């Protein structure tokens, strides 16, 4: 089974949801006419990243007949869409969120669990952390979504793997940083290294879309990637520039890789559970 994936690494207008929505619709149409069946947008793609006090004014209530989501849901009749936004819950807590839309429905929403609040990051000041990590079924198989810092921690991808995800969909707004003599920034090298490791360690597909553009002095480096279950790079978008990068994924690669390397079969989550319990509770 094949899946035509599109990585939409876009720049965004900070706090201007309508302008960003317009760009989403254009990219969705382009992806559709290129034969894509799933298009993946970056973290906070509808709002921009360093929102600070803009958070409450750009938040979306996905339950209501939100005008923004109405357009995206309509478009999801033609192809599946992963979009980044600020989700406001019924108690008015704000989350960094990704939604998987398909056939006019919201299939799954992930709230970013790990909010970096150190160095240049201040997410914990403005957002509530998510509290669940769940895989979900799509028409292409079971998938899992994580947002940026979520996959700087090893446990969320691990949990999604155990929960049945064979395609990990990562999105980020990763500020470029770490200058040395190398041709790529340390942040790019780290993310690529890690995503490749997840693909290989979990014998799974890992697709990552990272945004581009600037917000004040921060650059976002793009460079979206897809790694296959062997840890091989299938495709990479350009650094620093907006692009729609297409990738045909052969899902049967899961069969071939796992026949050769049965890491999933041999994994011992019961042992992990026992040891975690011991570590946490001393018994």
């Amino acid at each position: 089974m094949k899946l035509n994936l599109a990585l939409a690494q876009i720049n965004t207008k900070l706090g201007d949801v309508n302008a960003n929505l317009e760009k989403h619709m254009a990219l969705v149409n382009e992806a559709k006419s290129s034969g894509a069946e799933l298009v993946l947008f970056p973290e906070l793609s509808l709002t921009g990243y360093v929102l600070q006090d803009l958070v409450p004014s750009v938040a979306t209530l996905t339950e209501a007949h939100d005008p923004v989501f109405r357009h995206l849901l309509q478009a999801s009749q033609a192809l599946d869409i992963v979009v980044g936004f600020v989700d406001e819950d019924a108690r008015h807590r704000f989350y960094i969120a990704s939604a998987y839309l398909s056939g006019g429905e919201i299939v799954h929403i992930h709230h970013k669990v790990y909010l970096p609040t150190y160095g240049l990051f201040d997410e914990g000041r403005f957002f509530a952390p998510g509290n669940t990590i769940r895989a979900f079924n799509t028409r292409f198989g079971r998938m899992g979504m994580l947002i940026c810092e979520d996959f700087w921690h090893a446990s969320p991808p691990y949990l999604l793997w155990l929960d049945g995800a064979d395609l990990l969909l990562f999105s980020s707004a990763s500020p470029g940083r770490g200058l040395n003599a190398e041709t790529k920034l340390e942040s790019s090298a780290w993310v690529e290294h890690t995503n490749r490791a997840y693909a290989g360690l979990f014998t799974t597909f890992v697709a990552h879309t990272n945004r581009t553009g600037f917000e004040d002095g921060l650059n976002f480096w793009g460079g979206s990637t897809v790694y296959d279950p062997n840890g091989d790079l299938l495709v990479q978008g350009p650094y620093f520039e907006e692009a729609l990068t297409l990738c045909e994924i052969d899902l049967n690669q899961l069969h071939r890789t796992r026949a050769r390397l049965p890491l999933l079969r041999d994994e011992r989550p019961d042992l992990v559970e026992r040891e975690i319990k011991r570590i946490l509770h001393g018994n």
Partner: protein
Amino acid sequence: MEIDLSIDPALVRKILTAFIKTEIGRANFSRAVVNLSGGLDSSVSCALASEALGAENVLALRLPYKTSSQDSLEHAQLLIDQLGVRSLTIPISEMADALFARDPEMSPVRRGNIMARARMIVAYDQSEAFRGLVVGTGNKTEILLGYSTLYGDSACAINPIGDLYKTQVRQLARAMDIPEAIITKPPSADLWQGQTDEGELGFTYADVDRLLYLLVDQRYRPEECVEAGFEKVFVHKVVERVRRNQFKRVLPPIAKLSSRTIGYDFLYLRDWGT
């Protein structure tokens, strides 16, 4: 302990030209003004602006005082000719002398500050006249050491080179074909005759950049830098200088009274809405 300040100039160039183009565009401008002293930093900022916006959209200002070195003027012209940017030469002697005349005992530091601020006035006036934003020329070394005149040479709308140490700016300059005479001459604010940065600071950029890289970028403790072979007095002097000059790196504090105060809990990026 590894201290390697090498950069990939091609990568830096790509990011910084995109930064200039994007950030100037978001402010609804398409042009830039650069105070071109004839030194390394302003030459690199000017070349980056020219590459980002097109030479015709960059105005390089030569703003000599009557005692400014002829080399500075000539080096600035060399770069203007090489890049093909627009240029103006506006002497600041009359502006500065009018103030100098009020106090014949004025110290070199006061005179230097007046010159730096006179140049700022001209740059911001040309910013309005040319409809271009002032592109800054301060590097990471001088910002950390506070080696600048507040509201003078540090004044700008955006600063592309403020996260590069002086020795890194030099690497970028080489890659951008800045004339060799500009790259190799001793850095100087040229505020009085014979002034050099390294003479005034009391240490070399090569040394202080390595130390700052450890202290700031790599988060080493001062005592670890001493253990690594840096002179204790030198380390102390630099640490103290960085601390003492924090005021030059932040906006003036506003006394908080209300429940929402600019700078504390009224937080938006400058790129808000763009």
